[in-house]
């Protein structure tokens, strides 16, 4: 075999997910679930830390599975030793809880993992099924921009797509998944997060699979994981009861003021 070039294997199915929030149990479940569905490549859109327990448990899972990661605001903060998560919240009530999970994550992340997070790219581009795919955290123009389904017009996305010369843009940051089709088989999708459930009263989280079925499309995949174990570990780490309630009930209890009305009204709090 020496001297003979091996053909590069192009992935057929790609798992894309956002916001791990230290939820290593969901990440383990995702890797197994996606592999069982034929996924051969993984991308994470950032925000590795937040309110889950034991931040360092995420690191080996990322390395062992060769998961490429876009730098989220959290990772930029942890990597650069900043004072807060740069989540982009503006209400003091949102910032109060965000600070608790940030301080916990910062304190419990080892220096090597922090250095690794500092060096992550803010966007990743690749070609898939003839389409130019752009992966980012919040939006292609700003890492901590919130792109909610109910506040993102089509013409705004079209401007972003044309400026960034992309056919498919995938982002996260808001915690809620949604998709919007544009002309010429282009689309934007927010892939949601695997760190906490979707504020719909269900305990599962969501990730996505990018695939080619004649045309490139994205499928949102519900993911069950050991959420009761996660809640117990959060409790043992003395995380606030509000965070644990979210994991156990599927309703968001904190960082709600940033939600636009359509998204807020669907929740319980």
């Amino acid at each position, binding site marked *: 075999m020496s001297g003979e070039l091996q053909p590069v294997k192009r992935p057929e199915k790609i798992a894309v997910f956002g916001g791990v929030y230290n939820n290593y149990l969901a990440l383990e479940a995702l890797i197994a679930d996606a592999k069982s569905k034929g996924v051969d490549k993984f991308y994470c859109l950032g925000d590795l830390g937040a309110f889950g327990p034991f931040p360092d448990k995420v690191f080996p899972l990322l390395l062992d599975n060769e998961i490429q990661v876009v730098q989220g605001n959290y990772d930029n903060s942890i990597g650069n030793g900043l004072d807060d998560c740069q989540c982009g919240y503006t209400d003091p009530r949102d910032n109060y809880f965000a600070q608790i999970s940030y301080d916990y994550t910062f304190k419990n992340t080892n220096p090597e993992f922090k250095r690794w997070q500092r060096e992550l790219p803010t966007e990743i581009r690749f070609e898939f099924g003839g389409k130019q795919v752009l992966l980012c955290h919040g939006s292609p*123009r700003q890492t901590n921009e919130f792109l909610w389904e109910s506040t993102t017009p089509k013409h705004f996305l*079209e401007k972003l797509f044309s400026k960034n010369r992309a056919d498919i843009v995938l982002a996260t940051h808001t915690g809620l998944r949604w998709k919007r089709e544009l002309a010429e088989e282009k689309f934007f999708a927010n892939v949601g997060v695997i760190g906490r459930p979707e504020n719909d009263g269900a305990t599962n989280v969501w990730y996505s699979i990018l695939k080619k079925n004649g045309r490139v499309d994205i499928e949102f995949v519900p993911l069950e994981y050991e959420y009761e174990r996660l809640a117990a570990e959060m409790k043992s780490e003395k995380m606030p009861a509000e965070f644990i309630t979210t994991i156990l009930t599927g309703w968001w209890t904190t960082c709600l003021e940033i939600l636009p009305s359509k998204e807020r009204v669907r929740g319980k709090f």
Partner: protein
Amino acid sequence: MSFNSFKDQETDILMETMAPLREPEIENVPSAPLHALDSLWFQVGGTICNLWCSHCFISCSPKNHNFGFMPRATVKRYLDESKGIGVKEYYFTGGEPFMNRDMLDILQDTLAIGPATVLTNGILIVERVAQQLKNIAEGSIFSLELRVSIDGFTATENDKIRGKGSFDRAMKGVKNLVDAGFLPIITCAQTWEEEQNEATLAGFAATLKKIGYARPRVKIIPPLRMGREKVRSRGYDQFEYVTEEMMWDFDDNLLQCTHSRMATDKGVYVCPILIDYPEAKVAETLSGSFKPFPLQHQACYTCYISGAICHNFSGASGSQKEKSASLAGV
């Protein structure tokens, strides 16, 4: 017209606030570019209002016709232009927007293409209007936000500023919105010391829960020391302006004018705050308004300190400007 105790003084005050607006002589005025037109504002109610609030920074009243109602066709023209520019969200203010008879049609047009926010005093939101707003909101994939101005969680506190009886009437409007399924954002101009913010938020939460608003959204806005507010409390101090040095290492995305413009019946202005200043008119069209604006006004100082306070999701804490600028960039 018993609701207003300020009215007798109004002529004098108007004379004072409408007199040529003077600003201190500042050397080396910094400029702010329009990075992207994300937020398009409409002075849809002109400066015409059914209240006569003592802190109004553009001195709106039933008698102030400096700016008029914007007809549906005028708004539509700007909406059409905004699509090519990639505007992200639309805001409607006045004066009182619901005094404009075209307002519901205008919202219908807007929500067909993007999210809309209305800044209102709530008084004209009777049950029928709340129901019509509900129908419009449910027919769109985009959010319709209603921001109702109430300046204290008791009638005594609020009515001192907004006029006698205005608290009860605004709360009725809020109740109608809540009953129709909305989660209105109560906005409250800060006329107290910052230390009292938390107690005020708690007071609002308790008052709003009593009328059935179980998960109230409340936003505190810092005062703009201009218009009638200049008389109510004080104007800006001589040192309260933005200098070139202050812009070093400052994330200018926090300024309203770097990502928004204000459309009026008289053309496009730089921001929602400065429409009383003739030089704040920057163009007739949105595409013509992409030019830097000198931060020579003292209101720019409030925006600098507190962040773009007009936006739905901006705080009054003043902490934003200390944040890392590393994530910004348009």
